């Protein structure tokens, strides 16, 4: 195949990247299915844990006040699972698409590798933050759990994805201007 023909084809990202992306999508599907199948059990578990930690959730011992607090925490617990399902599904596809662009437009091997690693780890790790947030809500409350998920997962993995996307956008721009 000639060099001109080579330039006009998409290059596939490494297999491990595709595997991670597919795994992310599979986890999203399993998460979504489990969420629907075990909704009652999950809600009961979360509620019991919250009732066991009244101080964390600011429960005051009056049903009319506490039910509203528990309801909010349970809605957010459920939202975390839903957001994990949606983000893991979406980011799996984003990983495949963006690493394919990186494999095609990045000529330098180290640059290509770096962008691919950032996109893959960032894209696969970010949705896990929602799962972590959801899992921690019964023990730390919605805000406490959010702070933990933010610093452990969302900020590092989200930053990796954003940095890699900017890098990739810059590379594409360079290719478009012919450099």
């Amino acid at each position, binding site marked *: 195949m000639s060099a001109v023909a080579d330039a006009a084809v998409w290059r596939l990202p490494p297999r491990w990247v595709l595997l991670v992306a597919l795994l992310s999508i599979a986890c999203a599907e399993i998460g979504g299915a489990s969420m629907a199948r075990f909704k009652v059990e999950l809600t009961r578990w979360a509620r019991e844990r919250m009732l066991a930690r009244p101080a964390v959730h600011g429960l005051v011992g009056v049903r*009319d006040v506490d*039910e*509203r607090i528990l309801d909010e925490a349970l809605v957010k617990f459920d939202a975390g699972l839903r*957001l994990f399902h949606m983000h893991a599904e979406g980011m799996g596809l984003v990983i495949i698409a963006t690493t394919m662009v990186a494999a*095609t437009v990045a000529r330098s091997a180290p640059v290509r590798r770096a962008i691919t690693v950032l996109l893959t780890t960032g894209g696969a790790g970010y949705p896990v933050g929602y799962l972590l947030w959801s899992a921690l809500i019964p023990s730390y409350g919605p805000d406490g759990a959010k702070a933990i998920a933010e610093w452990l997962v969302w900020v590092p993995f989200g930053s990796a994805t954003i940095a890699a996307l900017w890098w990739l956008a810059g590379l594409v721009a360079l290719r478009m201007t012919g450099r």
Partner: protein
Amino acid sequence: MTPMIGRVRRVFGRPEPARSFLRPPSVVSVLTALATTILATTILATIIAPAAAHHVGSYVPRDNAVTTNFKQIKFSVQAKRFDVALQLFEQGAVRAEMRAQAATLPPGLEDGTRAALRASDGLEAERRLMIFFAALARDLAVEADRQLGEPGVTPETRAATGRKFLEAIWRYYNLVDFAVAMRDSKSSVAVRLAFDEAEGYVKPATGGAAPDDPAKARQPIQRIAQVLSTLIETSSTSARRSS
């Protein structure tokens, strides 16, 4: 030659072959579209991200069983469907709660509400329900006052407790404020003013810091309890006289 083809030449140094309409778009045009999308999304995400932080959804407080049942009864009464209203009352959470709270409610409230609905007397049913919700709000105000007065509590906790109680008080009182205002506008204004004042004492200071002295909210909360107690007493007396 079109500008598009000119751009293609600059990138790859070769002219794009002529297209037949069955041919898929070239890699370059797909790449260009993809690159534009990536760039736009990235810029948008970077701009929006600091303001919205991480998307974690939002919570809209829902009605509880009592407020839901009250609204059902109210709308049925407004539609003059007293048979439906009576059925909703007999089977719903309002009556169950009336029974559960019977010790703190004026005597005969449940029977009076049922009788009013049977007699298709919308105004009387409204008055009875107003008394019931005013009593629920009053009991919450009394408990809020007690908890805010407990020693050894940090201002943050006290403020948070105050906010939660005020929210719960308002959820019940708001349902009957119109009915209260129609019968006793002074009480309605007094409750709303006291509520605003209490809210001011427990809301976070600038920068999210705890308010200086959330215990000050006790005074307006005591006023709420007092005004509602008087309202319940006068409304119950007039209800008994008219029955």
